[in-house]
């Protein structure tokens, strides 16, 4: 009888239930993970990533699982342990996290994004690149504000990049500059990307007149196959020579696009767009979610990051719109300033928002393809901004 009760007590003590109340923060994180799962599954907020992130968050905060060990990564950062220790002592999510820490996942995601992206609208209207540049304003505004709020340079740069509205870029930069903030920054970035249809329209309406929103843009020219093939090669040579730190992101983005456009690698393009993209998305999202250990995530810094992320998104939208208005004036009213807000990358959500807002003012207005130009330019712009911050703080 005594042996049985002792076994039951041991069983209870080794179970997660007995450890669940050791740290109240784990309980809050489990509730938060369930809320994020609800938002991803029911409200469809960036479900492909948010569901994985939320599940990673859930797994890492269930006590006793031993899937992720933040102290192991601290030791690696200090240099007291090497990556070999992860294989020897780490859990499943520690091993998956190596792909984040070494920037392999964000770069592979960019390969898939490149294979899925049609740069035709950008090639047809290269002025879109200006809007893609202007919409990086939020990155630097949030950077300054983060410094004001007491973050150091590396942390402020990682927080600022949320304004680029590009998840893989944010993860790429943060995993190098401020890995301890990775969970909060990734969640803020993807949550706000999902909320773009709610964040952008009020700003768009406030900064543009009804007359400007009604502007119909001319049909774009046809882009030849040759131009589409040469474009990724020219971009990669040009940008990497100018700013070598953008090589991992833009190199993979342009390789993916070349696979799509060259016409002789359909199978590789298909793999990059579908199978590879899906596999990496699962690993990336779960391992990023795993970094949100309650004791480290539930801090004042996280709340500040969430607020700064929203600020960054808003100012990026403002930057794109203001340059859109300027181009509208300079072109004699031929450019609808609404396409400027699509300069925050978030492909294709931001372009869709430009289309919807434009169509509300003029139901015969089709801005989608015009907005896709600044939208894909924003991807290049945010990668360049990340490359610059990496060159300064890396």
């Amino acid at each position, binding site marked *: 009888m005594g042996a049985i009760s002792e076994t039951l007590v041991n069983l209870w003590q080794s179970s997660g239930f007995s450890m669940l109340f050791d740290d109240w923060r784990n309980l809050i994180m489990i509730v938060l993970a369930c809320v994020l799962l609800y938002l991803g599954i029911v409200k469809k907020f960036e479900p492909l990533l948010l569901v994985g992130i939320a599940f990673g968050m859930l797994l890492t905060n269930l006590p006793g699982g031993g899937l992720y060990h933040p102290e192991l990564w601290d030791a690696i950062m200090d240099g007291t342990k090497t990556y070999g220790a992860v294989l020897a002592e780490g859990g499943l999510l520690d091993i998956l996290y190596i792909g984040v820490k070494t920037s392999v996942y964000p770069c592979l995601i960019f390969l898939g994004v490149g294979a899925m992206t049609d740069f035709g609208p*950008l*090639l047809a209207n*290269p*002025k879109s*690149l*200006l809007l*893609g*540049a*202007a919409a*990086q*304003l939020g*990155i*630097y*505004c949030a*950077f*300054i504000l983060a*410094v*004001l709020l007491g973050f*150091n*340079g*590396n942390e*402020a740069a990682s927080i600022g990049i949320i304004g680029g509205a590009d998840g893989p870029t944010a993860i790429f930069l943060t995993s190098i500059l401020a890995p301890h903030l990775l969970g909060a920054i990734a969640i803020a970035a993807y949550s706000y990307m999902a909320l773009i249809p709610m964040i952008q329209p009020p700003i768009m309406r406030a900064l543009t007149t009804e007359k400007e929103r009604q502007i119909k843009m001319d*049909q774009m020219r*046809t*882009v*030849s196959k*040759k*131009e589409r093939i*040469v*474009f990724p090669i*020219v*971009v990669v040579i*040009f*940008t990497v020579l*100018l*700013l070598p730190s953008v090589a991992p992101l833009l190199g993979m983005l342009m390789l993916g696009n070349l696979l799509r456009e060259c016409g002789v690698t359909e199978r590789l393009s298909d793999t990059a767009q579908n199978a590879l993209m899906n596999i990496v998305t699962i690993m990336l999202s779960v391992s990023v979610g795993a970094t949100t250990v309650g004791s480290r995530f539930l801090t004042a810094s996280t709340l500040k990051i969430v607020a700064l992320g929203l600020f960054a998104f808003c100012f990026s939208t403002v930057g794109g719109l203001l340059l859109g208005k300027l181009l509208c004036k300079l072109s004699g009213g031929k450019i609808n300033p609404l396409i400027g807000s699509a300069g925050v990358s978030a492909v294709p959500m931001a372009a869709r928002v430009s289309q919807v807002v434009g169509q509300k003012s003029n139901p015969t207005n*089709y801005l989608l*393809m015009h907005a896709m130009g600044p939208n894909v*330019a924003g991807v*290049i*712009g945010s990668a*360049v*901004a990340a490359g*610059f*911050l990496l060159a*300064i*703080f890396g």
Partner: protein
Amino acid sequence: MTVTLAESLGYSILGMAVVFVMLVLLMVVIFAMGKAMTQGKKRQPAAPAASEAPAAPVPAPAPDPKAGKVPARGSLGDVDLHTVDDRTAAILMAIVADKMGAPLNELRFISIKEIQ
């Protein structure tokens, strides 16, 4: 790395400038690339033009079904019609748009040819 407010302002101005310079240069490169390619395209058809379709689009109210290709004006450029009359071409384009679930003005038809 600790950064002061003044430094953060400096980095931000420099960062924005780098992004703009990079993308403006890229814009110039794309403009030049587009110009070079469209000029090359214009030069190419000069020799065999006689046997090909006329350069200017022709409305072609009732083309002879036995004739060669006839360009017809569409919402997205011109469509080369090969032994197909306007009415049949319009019906075919409407069917394709319907099957694809896409508005006709967002589709680009290059040529329509009857296979015999």
